[in-house]
């Protein structure tokens, strides 16, 4: 069985990051009939995505990763509110604080600088009109020019991605799920955005189709040089696609580093279990999951949110929130025990 090969890519760490998220907090704040609930979906998240890199966000359901990227794309509405922190993009035409812009400004950068690929392709493609009209709706105002010139550009883009331009004349329901998803990605990248957010784009697809879609994403990334923030719970996809990887648990970032490092030597016990519990074809090792369940974000555990399920937990874990700190160059971890082991310091 051959492993899936990848082209080499060189992200440039020296240049300023394209996306900077600082101390971001986004909570659901709800009141009905006297009952107040605050769900801390994203709680104090700080990370950066460099230019020309694919950054993966891993985590399970209720880890907050979907809320996080929606917040980054400024696609949230009350009762979900940003309570603190900032999201800043450094596009070629200047730095932009996403929450300081007017809605008109946000609309202007959508699709041309920042685009979004979601899990359901049918959320994007209008089911009662042909594919070409979706392209017109989304991209025509950014690309401009005559209709003919526009469609020539679209056809060229599709051909570059190994898609037959004839699909433009089809209706979405006439195409397979994989084909629709590929078209959604082509649509999201036709304006050559600098930043692409992909929210579980391959999760609903079969493995064979998934392989094609991932290959296409890599192609595009190579060609346009954009950065991709790729969210999925599937660690195998991260292993085969991303340059750097951030692991989210219960609304917080618990580990971050180069993908190869994370898989080779995960520091955080949650990450370690996530990787080791993956069953693999060809080996006989008994794998097991974690006891317990992800916490309720309306009432999360004190201190480190993972401590109720953690095999390495010590009393300190319940009392103090572990800060996300760099234990190796480029490799950050939020865990008291991991830090103590790495630095050799005693655990109080």
């Amino acid at each position: 069985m051959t492993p899936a090969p990848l082209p080499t890519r060189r992200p440039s760490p020296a240049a300023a990051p394209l996306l900077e998220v600082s101390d971001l907090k986004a909570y659901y704040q709800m009141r009905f009939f006297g009952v107040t609930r605050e769900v801390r979906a994203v709680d104090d998240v700080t990370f950066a995505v460099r230019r020309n890199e694919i950054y993966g966000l891993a985590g399970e359901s209720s880890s907050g990763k979907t809320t996080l990227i929606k917040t980054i794309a400024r696609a949230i509405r009350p009762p979900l509110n940003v309570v603190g922190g900032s999201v800043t993009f450094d596009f070629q035409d200047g730095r932009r604080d996403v929450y300081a812009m007017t809605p008109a400004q946000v609309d202007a950068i959508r699709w041309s600088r920042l685009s979004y690929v979601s899990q359901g392709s049918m959320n994007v493609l209008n089911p009662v009109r042909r594919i070409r009209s979706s392209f017109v709706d989304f991209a025509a105002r950014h690309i401009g020019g005559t209709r003919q010139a526009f469609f020539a550009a679209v056809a060229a883009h599709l051909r570059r991605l190994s898609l037959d331009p004839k699909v433009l004349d089809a209706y979405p329901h006439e195409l397979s799920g994989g084909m629709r998803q590929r078209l959604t990605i082509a649509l999201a990248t036709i304006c050559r955005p600098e930043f692409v957010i992909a929210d579980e784009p391959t999760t609903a697809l079969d493995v064979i189709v998934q392989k094609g879609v991932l290959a296409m994403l890599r192609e595009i990334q190579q060609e346009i040089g954009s950065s991709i923030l790729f969210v999925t719970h599937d660690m195998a996809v991260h292993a085969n696609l991303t340059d750097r990887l951030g692991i989210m648990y219960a609304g917080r970032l618990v580990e971050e580093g180069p993908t190869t490092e994370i898989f080779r030597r995960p520091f955080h016990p949650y990450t370690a279990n996530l990787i080791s519990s993956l069953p693999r074809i060809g080996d006989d090792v008994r794998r097991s999951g974690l006891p317990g369940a992800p916490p309720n974000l309306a009432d999360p555990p004190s201190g480190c949110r993972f401590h109720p399920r953690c095999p390495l937990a010590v009393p300190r874990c319940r009392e103090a929130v572990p800060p996300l700190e760099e234990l190796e160059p480029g490799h950050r971890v939020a865990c008291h025990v991991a830090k103590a082991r790495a630095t050799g310091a005693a655990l109080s």
Partner: protein
Amino acid sequence: MTTLLEVRQVGKTFRSGGLFGRHVVRAVDGVDFALASERPEVFTIIGESGSGKSTLARMILNSTSPDGGSILFRGRDLATIRSRRDRLAFMAEVQPVFQNPFEAFNPLKRVDRYLFMGARRFCGARTRDEVEARADAALRKVGLSLAEVRGRFPHEMSGGQLQRVAIARALVPEPALVVADEPVSMIDASLRMTIVNMFRTLRDAFGVSIIYITHDLATAYTISDRLIIMEKGRVVESGPARAVLDAPSHPYSIRLLQAVLPVGNAWRDERPAEPRPQPAA
């Protein structure tokens, strides 16, 4: 050898396109296999979407009937099950587990209801103590207990727990066969293996045969005894699980295995560049 389940050349066709039925889809075509009753096993059906695996599952559960061929459970053709009593007797032996644990429970009601319902209906339990004892026994088989689950609503529990309760519900009548249709695909990765391992326990400790339907080859590799691979309604390959997955012979099986993303190989710098992909179909 007595057979538990015999699927004989089963086929199912769907017609679409109005009165004249222009479009005909053979969802299942000529599927044939059998499960023995002496030796419980985990029998896996692997297929992608459109392969017909869910339709096959529905036929085995007697929710829909085959157009061609027949399905026999303990020697009795499912098509002869008509009366409510016969139907209940069949359900007591063959139970399903579905894909979506969140949808499997009525969000406005407590989760223990279905367990109690099953205990009353299938086990003939009458008094409250009997009913609760049965429910508790089933829950313990999946590593939970009635004390933990009693009175809880679905939204208070995680996907993994809900799915375990769903499996317990299926175990209440002590069935001989459990048909699990993508039981872990909507469960978080950290909880997935707990449930997959539980299927193994069900087979070994409680003698339940399991038909495990999935598209995830990795979990199939871990617990299956035998498996079949379906493509567009037909079985393209079958045999002992490890043998098939380690050395597939059919081109579709080979493509399927090649598409599985390897996890151990995160060291990507050492690999050569991928050749340009072929134009998509």
